[in-house]
C-alpha cells in the first residue's frame, strides 16, 4: 500500500513537535475529513532555520508532514514556496491514489506557515 519511504517517515517521523521560538505557524485540514497538520517555522534572514510539525492523520498524513520538514530545512522562503504537494508525494516515491487529495496537504501547511510569518513581519 505505502512505499518504503512512506513507511520510513511514518515509523521514524523527522522533526515532530512544537517550536517555542516559532515565528510562523500554519495549519490545514480539519478533523472531519481526517487530517490536521500544523507546521512551526523558525525563520531567520529569509532562511528556514528550524521546522517542526504536529499531525493528526493517517500514515500518508504523517509521512508527508515529516518529509516536508526535511525538504525545507535550511531553504529560503522563496525555495520553500516552490515545494508543492506533488513534489512531497514524489519525494516519498508516491502515494496511493486515494491518498493524493485527502492526506497530501503538508506543502499547504508549509505555505500557510510562511504566509503567517510574512503577515506577522509586515504587521510589525
Amino acid at each position: 500500500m505505502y512505499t518504503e519511504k512512506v513507511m520510513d517517515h511514518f515509523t521514524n517521523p523527522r522533526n515532530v513537535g512544537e517550536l517555542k521560538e516559532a515565528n510562523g505557524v500554519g495549519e490545514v485540514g480539519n478533523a472531519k475529513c481526517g487530517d490536521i497538520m500544523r507546521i512551526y517555522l523558525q525563520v531567520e534572514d529569509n532562511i528556514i532555520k528550524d521546522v517542526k510539525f504536529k499531525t493528526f492523520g493517517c500514515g500518508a498524513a504523517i509521512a508527508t508532514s515529516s518529509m516536508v520538514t526535511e525538504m525545507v530545512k535550511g531553504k529560503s522562503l522563496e525555495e520553500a514556496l516552490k515545494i508543492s504537494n506533488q513534489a512531497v508525494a514524489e519525494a516519498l516515491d508516491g502515494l496511493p491514489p486515494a491518498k493524493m487529495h485527502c492526506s497530501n496537504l503538508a506543502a499547504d501547511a508549509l505555505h500557510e506557515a510562511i504566509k503567517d510569518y510574512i503577515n506577522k513581519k509586515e504587521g510589525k
Partner: protein
Amino acid sequence: MKRIYFDHSATTPVDEEVAKLMLEYMTEKFGNPSSIHSFGREVHKAVDEARNHVAALIGANANEIFFTSGGTEADNLALKGVALANRKKGNHIITTAIEHHAILHTCEYLEKQGFSITYLPVDEHARVKIEDVRNAVTDQTILISVMFANNEVGTIQPITEISEIAKEKGIYFHTDAVQAVGNYPIDVKELNLDLLTLSGHKFHGPKGVGALYVRRGVRIESVQQGGGQERSIRPGTENVPGIIGLGKAAEIAKRDMEKKIAHITALRDKLTTGIRERISDIKLNGHPTIRMPGNVNFSFSYVEGESLLLNLDLKGIAASSGSACTSGSLDPSHVLLAMGLTHEVAHGSLRISLGRGNTAEDIDYCLTVLPEIIERLRSMSPLSST
C-alpha cells in the same frame, strides 16, 4: 516476528479440518451434484449433509437453507427477493442506519425501483428502539430487516422484540446475522425469524460461501437466473467445496459454541479492563454488555485510526478501525456517526475482534504495545495538549 490476528470480524482462518475436507471435494470427489452418475451422486449427498449441518446450527429445516456465494449475496437475495415477490402487498421496507453496506446499498437500489425505505436511528450504544420499529410500520410495510449483531461495535439488537412486532403486524422479518451465526447461539424457530443471512468465513468456514435461511412459506423470487440449482432460487453450479466447508464449519461451531464463547469472553474482558487501566481519554463504543463476545471497540482521543492500525501492524498486531482513511471513503464509519460520535472520535476508533485462536498472552502483548503507540501518536497530534 510473532503475528497476532485480532480481526475476526473481518474474516477468520479456515479450520484445518474444514480445509482438509474441502480438499477432498476438489481433487477426488469433484463431480457436479447435478450429474446422475456416481461422481455426481456422491457429491449431491455430501451437499445435502452440509445443508443439514447448516440448518442444525440455526435450528432450521434443511429445505429452508439456500446456499449463496456469501453474506452479501444472501442479503441481496433476501431484500430483493422478498421485495419483488411481495410488491403487490406493499412497497415499504424498514431497516436501520447501521446495517452493513450489503443491506444499505441494496436498499438504495430498491429505492430506485420505487420502494420506500425507513432507516431507523440507533441510540448511543447502537441499539434500535422498539418503539421506533413499531412507529415505522405502515400498511405498506412488507419487510423489516435488522441486523443481529453489528460488525463494527458488536451491539446485539432486540431481535425477539422486533420479531414479535413483525409477527403481530404480519410483516416478514429478516436479520443479517453474518457476525453472529457460528459465534453466538441462534435459533430461528425460537426467534420466529422469516429470513436470516449467514456467511462462512466469519466462523472458520471458507470465503465465498454463505446461505440464506428462508422459512417455509415465505414468498421470495430468485435474483439470479440460470439452471435449476438450489431449487431455482439460486441457480449456478454449486460451490461444492465451499458448501462442504460451510457444513463442516457449522458442525464444529455448534459443537464448540459454549466453550468458544467462554474463552473469547474472558479474553475480551481482560483486554477491556486492561485498556481502561492503562489508557486515559478513551470511550468504549457499542453496548457495554449486550454485545458480541469477541468485540472490543474503543475510540482514543487525538489519535487517527489508520496510523494506529499501521503502528499496531508494525508490532505484529492485526486489527481494524472505523476511520475514513481505512475505508477508502471520505467519511468515517456510518455506524459510529449514527451512534452520535463526532468525526474526530469516530476517526480514532479501534476494533479488536477476538477469535478462538487468541490467547491470554496475545492480550498481554497488546496491553504492552498499545499504550506506547497511543502515547506516541498523541505526542504527535496537534489536537492533544500533551
